């Protein structure tokens, strides 16, 4: 089908609307039509006279009294979410590793349907996305939101209830998938009957955030807050629309599928990661981010462009040409918000390189922020027709997905956990050296993982494009690269186990810092 004038007009319209909206925003900021957030707003995350939040493990950390009351309100729900998140991280990693090994040794686990590749892989995805990164991201949200609003978390019991419902539903969902009960769409495998419980759990997370936002005592909403508050509205809408049974059919279902799946990355996990980095990077360093006004452009550009990129997963497929082109154009436009975030986060870190040595959490978060830039640039390029024709249908895509969901989101969240837990529990990690080991295991493991799949994926794609080579070539050439992936995945899993060991050991240690804080509060 040719692009008809109507559809061509629609395509142009979408692009022009996004571009005009963005131009209007920049104009408004430049001409002071709106209150452009300035560097004073960027400092709103600090208390007067407060410096870097780096706690050398040997030295007790002095809380600001107001702050200590705030942290106390959120520490319970936050620790619940972190604990469950890390459980799903380990569970998901083991399934991912097992699925990878199944491609190396296809007869290793063929004895039962529960352990077949198609199900192990799916349990892996659902565990790490909805169990690990969503919950660890929510932990970061519930930690940061009360802090930037200078008010205790409201309806904390509801967060705990939500965590309970969410995890029970997830156990049911994963068990359903393993036993062959699935909705059959990538990223939407959990049966819709169980999704109802997940949606109720999600509502239990949204309500306390809105209540806390309404009760805030600061005038300005800090940039992390924009990302978080928008994301917690976007995700439930996406999730509910995508899971309505009987509504979606045939190819329409495929476009809905990738609208949903890419927005889970773009409008849920990405805002969690970016928002968390936007809070902790300046907080740990003790200096505000480089250019606060740019962060506003970055946020709205992300919303406008990221929300429309999903159909680049169907390039060359049985979907309307205009729709594919629309998503490609917006994929390229993603350079705008990504560069805005990159300027802010990387310049702030680059001017304070000393802090990377002083703070392990910052090292994780910095690596994650760098990966966000790289993953997004790669994603934009990958959406070009000329590139996509080679990389589509290959392991290259899997490498890219892990650069985004793992090296970016997960690394930021690891850093957030290491930063939050000592402050939420008043305890130090008993094995601080394991934190360093965790970092290097996942970084080296991920490098092996990523380069194996990226190189292997390109070779696989080139083999499939060459009509003179049999299909078998694309499989046999890939085998050593798939083995490399298992090696990398194994190292990453080992790193995750170190995190779990540290967390479990911490649970059994005595409180050290909290006592002092309470004395301080009492003295006031």
């Amino acid at each position, binding site marked *: *089908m*040719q692009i008809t004038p109507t559809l061509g007009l*629609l395509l142009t319209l979408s692009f022009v609307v996004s571009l005009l909206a963005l131009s209007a925003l920049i104009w408004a900021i430049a001409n002071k039509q709106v209150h452009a957030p300035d560097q004073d707003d960027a400092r709103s995350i600090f208390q007067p006279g407060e410096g870097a939040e780096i706690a050398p493990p040997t030295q007790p950390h002095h809380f600001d009294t107001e702050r200590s009351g705030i942290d106390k309100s959120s520490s319970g729900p936050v620790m619940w979410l972190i604990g469950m998140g890390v459980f799903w991280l380990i569970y998901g990693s083991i399934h991912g590793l097992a699925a990878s090994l199944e491609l190396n040794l*296809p*007869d290793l686990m*063929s*004895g039962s349907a529960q352990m*077949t*590749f*198609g*199900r192990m892989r*799916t349990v892996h995805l659902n565990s790490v996305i909805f169990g690990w990164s969503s919950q660890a991201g929510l932990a970061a949200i519930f930690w940061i939101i009360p802090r930037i609003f200078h008010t205790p978390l409201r309806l904390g019991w509801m967060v705990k209830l939500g965590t309970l419902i969410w995890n029970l539903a997830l156990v049911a969902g994963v068990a359903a998938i393993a036993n*062959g*009960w*699935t*909705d*059959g769409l990538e990223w939407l495998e959990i049966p819709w009957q169980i999704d109802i419980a997940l949606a109720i759990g999600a509502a239990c997370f949204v309500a306390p955030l809105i209540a806390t*936002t309404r009760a805030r005592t600061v005038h*300005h*909403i800090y940039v992390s807050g924009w990302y978080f*508050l*928008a994301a917690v*509205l*976007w995700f439930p*809408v996406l999730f509910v*629309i995508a899971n309505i049974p009987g509504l979606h*059919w*045939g*190819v*329409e*279902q*495929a*476009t809905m599928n990738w609208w949903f799946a890419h*927005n889970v990355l773009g409008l849920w996990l990405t805002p969690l990661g970016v928002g968390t980095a936007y809070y902790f990077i300046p907080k740990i360093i003790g200096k505000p981010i480089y250019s606060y006004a740019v962060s506003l452009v970055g946020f709205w550009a992300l919303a*406008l462009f990221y*929300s*429309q990129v999903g*159909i680049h997963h169907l*390039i*060359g*497929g*049985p*979907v*309307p*040409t205009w*729709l594919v*082109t*629309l*998503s490609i154009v917006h994929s390229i436009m993603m350079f705008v918000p990504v560069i805005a975030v990159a300027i802010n986060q990387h310049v702030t870190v680059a001017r304070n390189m000393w802090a990377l040595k002083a703070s392990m959490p910052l090292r994780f978060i910095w690596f994650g922020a760098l990966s966000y830039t790289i993953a997004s640039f790669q994603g934009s390029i990958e959406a070009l*027709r000329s590139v996509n*024709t080679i990389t589509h*249908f*290959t*392991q290259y*895509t899997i490498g890219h997905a892990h650069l985004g969901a793992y090296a970016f989101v997960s690394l930021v969240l690891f850093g957030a956990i290491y930063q939050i837990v000592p402050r939420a529990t008043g305890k130090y990690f008993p094995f601080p050296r394991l934190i360093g080991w965790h970092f290097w295991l996942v970084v080296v493991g991920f490098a092996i993982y990523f380069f194996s799949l990226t190189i292997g994926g390109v070779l696989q794609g080139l083999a499939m494009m060459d009509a003179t080579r049999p299909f078998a070539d*694309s*499989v*046999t050439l*890939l*085998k050593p690269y798939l083995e490399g992936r298992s090696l990398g995945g194994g190292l990453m899993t080992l790193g995750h186990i170190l995190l779990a060991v540290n967390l479990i050991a911490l649970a059994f240690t005595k409180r050290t810092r909290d006592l002092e804080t309470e004395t301080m509060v009492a003295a006031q």
Partner: protein
Amino acid sequence: MNRYLPLAIVSLAILAFATLLLVIVPGMQIAADGVAPGLKPYTAAEARGRAVYVSMGCLYCHSQQPRDEAQAPDGERGWGRASVAGDYAYDAPHQLGTMRTGPDLMNIGDRLPSQDWQLTHLYQPRAISNWSIMPAYPFLFTHKDKAGPTDVVVKLPPAYAPKTGVIVANQDALDLVSYLQGMKHDYAPPGDGLRDNGYAQIDARQMPQTDAAKAAQ
């Protein structure tokens, strides 16, 4: 930005705009396009087999969407003509797929119609292709001492055959094979069938230029 309500409203409006463009408008266009003439609904056995296909997660390695010859040699590999939206009118959940760890299956019924071949391959892919990394599905079969009158016995090379008795296909395996055998989209596509023609359009634009360059020489 200091106010919550405008932030929430504009954020949701942007998502609504994206949903309109990525889901609702394409949905209307695809619905108007209708069923491809020549496409038959699934038989009861095929539908059951499709459910097995979905539950085993075949989707994660096999696509069902041959590409245009202007883009890739899918047709030359025997995977069939480029598919159009109307070819999927009876599909829910859709199984278009995003990976080709294994070959495209949109027309597997044309390429490999034999029930014997499919059953052997499902029981142990390496009995047919030693390079294959596809999972084996022995749990869709039963090891019996002696085949009953209605049992379908799986033909196996000695290296993969049991020492005594026979391997017979369960109903799930037979249904799955029915589904695969039915995967034939060999009817002519509708002339204006919906699909991504981006590559063909780029080709068409470049062709006259190449011809002109040749003429100039």
